[in-house]
C-alpha cells in the first residue's frame, strides 16, 4: 500500500463551493472527485468507488435525495449532505433516505472536516461496535458493560447502556430520535420519544461533567443526538 488516500466525491452544482471544498480536502490529503450534477455524480460514484460522498440536495438535474437513495441501493458508502435546506424536516428526510450526516450551508471548515472524519471512521469500522469509550475522565467498556469514573464504578442501567451503544455505533454522527427509539426500545415503541428525552437526561447526568451544557451527548434540535468523542490522535485508521 503506497499512500492510502481517501477518495471523496463532491456532488455540488456551485463551482465556487466545489473549489473551496477541493482546497480544504486536498489540504487534508484527501483525493477529490467533482461532479456538478446528480447524473454525473451517479456515474462517478459507480466508476471511482469513492470512500465518501458529499452531496448537495439542490442539484440542477434532479433532487439530491434521489441520488442518495440510488447510491444506498448498492453501496454502504458514507454520505454527507451539504445543504442550505435548514429545516429539520428536510434533514430528517435526507437521513431517512440513507445519508449518514449533514452539514448546513454556510459551513465552517473544522466542522466539515470533523464530520468527514467521523463518517470515514464508521466506514472503516463497518457496523461493528466500538469496544470501549472514553468520555473525559470516564471509561466505558461496552462489551463488559462496565463504566468507571474517577471516583470508582458508575452504575448504568441496561437501557442506558443500550442507548450509549447505539450512539457509539454512530459516534460523531447524528442519530435521529426515531432511529434511537427503534434500536433501543424496539420498533413497537416507535414514535414515543418522551422516554428517550428523560433517558438522555439521566445519561448526561451520569456521564457529562456539566449536564446543563453537555459536550459528549449533544442535541441536534428537532432531529436527534450526536455522540462526540475526543478525536483520537492519528487521522487515519489503517
Amino acid at each position, binding site marked *: 500500500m503506497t499512500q492510502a488516500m481517501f477518495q471523496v466525491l463532491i456532488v455540488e452544482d456551485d463551482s465556487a463551493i466545489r473549489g473551496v471544498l477541493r482546497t480544504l480536502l486536498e489540504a487534508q490529503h484527501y483525493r477529490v472527485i467533482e461532479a456538478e450534477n446528480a447524473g454525473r455524480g451517479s456515474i462517478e460514484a459507480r466508476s471511482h468507488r469513492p470512500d465518501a460522498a458529499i452531496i448537495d440536495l439542490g442539484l440542477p438535474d434532479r433532487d439530491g435525495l434521489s441520488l442518495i437513495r440510488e447510491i444506498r441501493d448498492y453501496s454502504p458508502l458514507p454520505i454527507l449532505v451539504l445543504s442550505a435546506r*435548514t429545516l429539520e424536516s428536510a434533514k430528517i428526510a435526507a437521513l431517512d433516505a440513507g445519508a449518514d450526516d449533514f452539514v448546513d450551508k*454556510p459551513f465552517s471548515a473544522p466542522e466539515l472536516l470533523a464530520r468527514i472524519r467521523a463518517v470515514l471512521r464508521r466506514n472503516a469500522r463497518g457496523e461493528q461496535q466500538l469496544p470501549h469509550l472514553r468520555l473525559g475522565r470516564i471509561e466505558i467498556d461496552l462489551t463488559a458493560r462496565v463504566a468507571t469514573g474517577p471516583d470508582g464504578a458508575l452504575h448504568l442501567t441496561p437501557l442506558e447502556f443500550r442507548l450509549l451503544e447505539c450512539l457509539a455505533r454512530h459516534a460523531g454522527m447524528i442519530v435521529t430520535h426515531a432511529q434511537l427509539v427503534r434500536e433501543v426500545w424496539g420498533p413497537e415503541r416507535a414514535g414515543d420519544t*418522551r422516554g428517550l*428525552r428523560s433517558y438522555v437526561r439521566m445519561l448526561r447526568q451520569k456521564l457529562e461533567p456539566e449536564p*446543563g*451544557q453537555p459536550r459528549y451527548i*449533544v*442535541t441536534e*434540535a*428537532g432531529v436527534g443526538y450526536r455522540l462526540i468523542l475526543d478525536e483520537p490522535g492519528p487521522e487515519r485508521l489503517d
Partner: protein
Amino acid sequence: MTERRDPDELLADVQREEARARRGRLRIFFGSSAGIGKTYSMLEAARGARAAGADLVVGYVEPHGRLETERLLIGLECLPFLEVRYRALVRPEFDLDAALVRRPAILLVDELAHSNLVEGEPRPRHAKRWQDVEELLDAGISVWTTLNVQHLESLNDVVAGITGVRQNETVPDRVFDEADEVELIDLPPDDLLARLRAGKVYLADQAATASERFFRKPNLLALRELALRRTADRVDAAAREYAGRERHSRPWLARDRFLIAVAPDDQAEQLVRVGKRFADALDAEWIVVSVETPELLKLGEARRNQRIEVLRLAESLGAETVTLDGATAAEALTEYARLRNVTRIVVGEAKRRGWRSWLRRSTAIELARRGREFDVSIIAQREAPGSPPRAYPGSVPEIRWRRYWLALGISAVCTGLAALMYPYFELTNLVMVYLLGSTIAALRLGRGPASLTAFVNVAAFDFCFVPPRFSFAVSDFQYLVTFAVMLGMTLVVASLVASVRAQTRVAGARERRTALLYAMSRELAANRSFDTLAMVAVKHVAETFASEAVVLMPDPSGRLQLPEGERAPGAFAGADLSIAQWVHDHGKPAGLGTDTLPAAPAQYLPLAGTRRTLGVLAVRPRQRRRLLLPEQRHLLETFAGQIALAIERAQLAEDAEAARVAAETESLRNTLLASISHDLRTPLAVIAGASSALADPNVELRPDARQALAHSIDTKAREMSELISNVLDLMRFEAGEVRLRLEWETVDDLVGTALARLDERLRGWRVEVVLPAELPAVRVDAALIIQLLSNLLDNAARHTPRGTRIRVGATQSDDTVELSVEDTGPGLPPGDPERLFAKFQRGREESNAGGAGLGLAICRAIARAHGGRISATPRPGGGACFRFVLPIGAEPP
C-alpha cells in the same frame, strides 16, 4: 334676521345642485290641450337655438302631416325613427339608444306622455316616454319636450271630470315639478276652436270620436284654467325656494303628515289623487295606507289587484305606501296614525248604508269617533264620468260539496238522536241537540254548510217533532222564536269562526314574512365572504318568493358577472346581463313588475350601498303574480336592502383590511430595505476588505494578521448568515408556513443546546443557569424554542458589556413553565417594552449594537405559535429581564 339653516339641508342643497349640474336640463312646453301649438313653439325655439350654434338634434317629433311643422324641421338634424313592429303594425318610435349614442347637447322629444309599445319588437326599454327622457337627462343630455295638462297624473281625474274623457297616458307630477323650465303655451279657446275648424289641429283616429265632447268651449276654458294654475303653482314654488326657501325654515316637526286610507273599492284611486293634491297644497308628507283585514282576503282577485294598482299609483305620485293588518281598518289606522304623528287622516265616504251601517259603523265614522289627535277628512265619492265602470267580479270560491254533505249528515244525526230522546224528554231539550249540531257545523264546516245545517235542523225539528208532527205546520206560535234563535246563533258562530280564522291567516302570513326576513338577516350577519353571502341571499330569496334568484356582482371594471362555481339551490342561471347591467348603472329596478322592460321574466333590483350600487339581485318568480303584489315587492326590496347592507359591510371590512395590510406592507418594505441594506453591507464591507487584502500578493501580512483577517471574515459571514436565516424565518412565520413539530422535550436540554450553540458568542460573559431539579417535560418544537432562547441570549450579549452576568432561569407553575434570561446591562430603553418585539425595532435607534431588530420579533412569533407569551421587564437592581411563558401541553396519551 338671518336664520341658521340645518346643515343637513344645506348639504342636501349642495348635493342637489351637484346632481343638477351633471344632469341634463328638462324644458317642457306645456299647454292646456292638443292643438295649441306646443310642438310648433318648440321647433321655433329649436331653430333659434340652432341658429345660435347649439348642438341640437330632433329625437322625435310627430309631424301629424302638418305642413307648417314639417317646414320648421327643415335644416334641423333628425334622428331616424326606430321601426317597432307590433302584430301587423309597424310604428315609428323614438330611438333611445341612437340618441344616447349621438349625445347631442339638446334633444327634442315630442309628447312626454307617450306610451311605448311594450309588447312591440324590438322591446322598448321603458314603458313610458318620460322614463326614456329621464334616462337621457341622467346621461347629461338636455331634453325639450311637450306636455298637455290632462296628462299630469294628479290632475287625471279632475280632467276626466271636466271633459268626460279619461287619459290613459299620464306623467308623474314629479317629472313636471322637477323640470328646469316650463314654458306655458297659451291660446284663447276661441282661437283654438277656430284653428280646429280650419283643420289645423291633428287628432288621432281614436281621439276623433271623443273630440266632439272634448273640444267644447267650457271644457277648453276649464283646461286652460288648470294649465295656468298648475304653471302658477310651479312659479310660486320656484319663487318661494328662491326667496330663502321659506318652507325649509319651518321646523320639520311642524310639517303636516297625511294618512290616506284606501279600501279596495272604486273610490281608492280618487282618494290617492285627492291626497296628492292635499299634500301638495299644504306641503305635507303623505302616506297611503291599505289595511289587510280579514275581509280583504275574501275579496276577488280582481279587487285585490286593484288595491295593488292603487298603491303603485300612490308610489308613483310620491307617497309612502304602507300595508297594515288588523281586525278592523279603523283600529289599525288610529294606531298607526298615532305612531307616525299623523295630523290628518283622509278616508272615503261611508260605504255601509241602511241596516248594515247600524250594525257596524263605517270606518270613516269610527275614525272620527276614535281619533282625537288628528283631523279626519271624509271625501265624497264622485262618479268619474268617462271611466267605464270596471267590472270586478267577486271571487267565486270553490264550493266544497263534501262539507255540505257532512252538514246534512249532522242534521240527520241530530234528528236521529232527537227521535231516540223524544219519548223521554221535553221538546225544549230536543232543541238543544239541534243547537249543538248547528254549532259544531259552524265551528267545523264554515258558513255555507253551517247555514244549511241550521235550516235543515229547523225544518227537521219542525217536521218531526213540533206538533202537529210530520207536517210543517206550527200549532204553537212560540216555536217560531226557537227557530229564529237556532238560525241566528248558527250564523253568528259561523261568521265569528270564519273571521277569526281569516285573521289568524293574515297574522300568520305577516309573521312568516318577518320571520323570513329575520332568518336571512341573521344568517347574513354570520357570514363575511361574498360567495357565502350571495349563497345565503339566493337561498332565502328563492325560498321566500318561490322563485329562482341570483346575486350578480361587478368585476373590477364594473361589468356584472354571473357567479362562478357551484350553484346554490334556487340559483337563477338565465339572468339577462344586459338588463342587470342597466340596473346596476342606473341604480333603478327593471324587469317584471317595474316600469322598465316589464315584459322580462325576472325582476332586477339594484343592491344599493351608501356610496354606489354594489350589485344586482335578479329574481324570477315561478308565478309572475307573486312579484306583482306590492307587499311582496316591498318585502323583496327589504330583502335587497338587507343583502346590500351585508355586502357593503363585507366590502368595507375587506377594504379596511386591505388598506391596513397595504400600509403595513409598505412600511415593512421600507424598513426591511433600510435595515437589510445596512446590515448586509456592513459585514460585506469587512469580508470584501479582509479577503482582498489576503488575496493581494503585494500586501505583506504577518501570520497573526492573516489569521485576524480570516477570523473577521468568518465572524462576519456568520453574522450575515444569521441575519438571513432570521429574515427567512420571520417570513415563514408571517406566511403561516410554520408547522410546529411538537415533541416532549426537557427544559435543561433546550437550554443546554441553546447555550452550546452560542458557546463562542457568549465567551466573555458569565453565564449562570439556574434550573429547578424537577422540571416537567414540555411539548414544543425544540428547534424553535432553542432559537428563541438563542435569540434572547444573543440579545443579552449584544446589549451588555463583556464580563457582566447573564442568568438563565426557569420556574414552574400549574400548567406553564416560565423561562427567563436576565442581564445586568443598561436595562430596557424607555418606552413601551412591547415595542421591542416589533419587527425591525431596535432598542436604541442609534445604537451600534447591530442586528436588524428581528431577533425579538421572531421570539414573539415563536412564543405565540406555541400559545405562550413573551415579555420584557426591567430587572430589579438594574438590567433587563426577558420572560417567556410556555404552556406545558397536554399529557401524552
